[in-house]
């Protein structure tokens, strides 16, 4: 027994040392990167919520999606080294505010509320909301029919805000707010809610890619002024200008269209 404990302790020590070594070598690598190279890329830490395909999602150890391609392309033309960080959607705006990240790109709609806390680039995508229901559901055909039903949405999105509006108009409406949109769709699939209110491109992508889905979209796209922008800290005019310039360049040289047709 004694020997066993000793062995375990020795093993632990070896592990700790190994981690320490790895940590050191990682540090060296970072130092090397921060040395002025030929391109002298500035680091741009970008936050996202990688649960929102096709705009952002996780693939292996990397993040992919429309937004990810877009921000990396902007980084390329504007000389940024882009680092992506995943976090809760609702944490993105506070993280930009507090400087934990430089910018946020996450299918984030430009709303008056958010504009009080952060600045947005020019819109890079027109989204709009859509209702998704169970395929056997005949009750819900349009936004009018949402009153008094069980609705699901993702926390902090304009879909969630819309659901709360419906609830204000009719108190018998039940609103269920999930941390990510995938869980909201799961809830719809298992019959826990009548409808999911969410950004149209994301819902459309879900229905296209999900296997054995029981959901369908109904009605027209609404909230048509729903436009996505990249959020930066309030007053960070320099970064805002750089991102807007990058966006304009991509639209000009056709890269934007390339990325668009890759995902939609």
């Amino acid at each position, binding site marked *: 027994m004694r020997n066993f404990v000793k062995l375990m302790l020795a093993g632990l020590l070896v592990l700790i040392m190994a981690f320490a070594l790895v940590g050191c070598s990682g540090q060296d690598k970072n130092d090397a990167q921060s040395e002025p190279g030929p391109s002298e890329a500035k680091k741009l830490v970008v936050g996202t919520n990688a649960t929102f395909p096709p705009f952002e999602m996780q693939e292996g150890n990397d993040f992919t999606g429309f937004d990810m391609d877009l921000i990396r392309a902007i980084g390329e033309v504007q000389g940024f080294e882009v680092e992506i960080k995943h976090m809760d959607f609702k944490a993105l705006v*506070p993280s930009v505010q507090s400087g934990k990240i430089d910018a946020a790109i996450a299918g984030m709609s430009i709303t008056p509320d958010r504009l009080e806390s952060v600045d947005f680039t020019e819109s890079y995508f027109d989204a709009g909301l859509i209702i998704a229901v169970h395929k056997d559901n005949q009750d819900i055909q349009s936004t009018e029919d949402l009153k008094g039903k069980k609705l699901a949405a993702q926390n902090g999105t304009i879909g969630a805000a819309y659901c709360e509006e419906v609830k204000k108009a009719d108190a018998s409406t039940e609103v269920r707010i999930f941390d990510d949109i995938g869980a909201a769709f799961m809830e719809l699939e*298992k019959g*826990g809610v009548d409808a999911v209110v969410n950004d149209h491109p994301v819902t459309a992508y879900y229905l296209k890619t999900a296997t054995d889905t029981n959901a369908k979209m109904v009605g027209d796209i609404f909230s048509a002024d729903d436009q996505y922008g990249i959020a930066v800290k309030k007053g960070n005019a320099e970064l805002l200008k750089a991102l807007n310039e990058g966006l304009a360049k991509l639209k000009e040289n056709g890269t934007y269209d390339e990325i668009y047709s890759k995902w939609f």
Partner: protein
Amino acid sequence: MPLLDSTFGLAILDAITSSAGFKVVAKNFVYFLGGAWYTIFITALSVAMGMVLGLFAGLGKLSKNKIIYGISTAYIDFFRGTPLFVQIFLLYFGVLPLIYDNDSLSSAIIALGLNSGAYIAEILRAGIQAIDKGQMEAARSLGMNERQAMVLVILPQAFKVVIPPLINEFIALLKDSSLVSAITVAELMHRGDLVFANTYQATWVFGTISLLYLVMTKTISMLGDYAERRLATE
């Protein structure tokens, strides 16, 4: 002495009450209290379920019957050995829909109850084993059978021993109940999350929620102290 001037105090008060964060908290305070009530409700039911499960699983782990022992051990190992957050999702979206048309509230209570049952089982088992062997022998020599001795002699004494660790477990469970926020149970953390997502007032919102949790956990620990005093024999 301008610093002690009464208007200075009023100025501070005014600065606090006119801050955006204070307004958010003031506006939502009753909503938060409702969430705290939900938290207490969920925790109480989960604890009740956990106590029943824990008693059976704890005794099962002391059983000489290999099947009962095996089932108890497997149950305890699984629910102690995997994260509660994972269990909540596994049960809510995976297992429970196969059994009944599950809603988030009942699923949350089942998940928390199953989880705490595993911990309570180990606490009770340790409590029973802490009672001197002579107690069982003495009870048996008075003519009680093993079950009578367990129920009438061992368990009442063990119960006293396990109060402090049980209180610990109740407090842990009350805090862990914040995890069911992820399946939209409108308890305290979920409500804080919703308000935070629209106001971004992290310090005020989560500060208030911390205080409410603190009040609840402190109340539980005081109840525990009281129970310990009442049951003290020396």
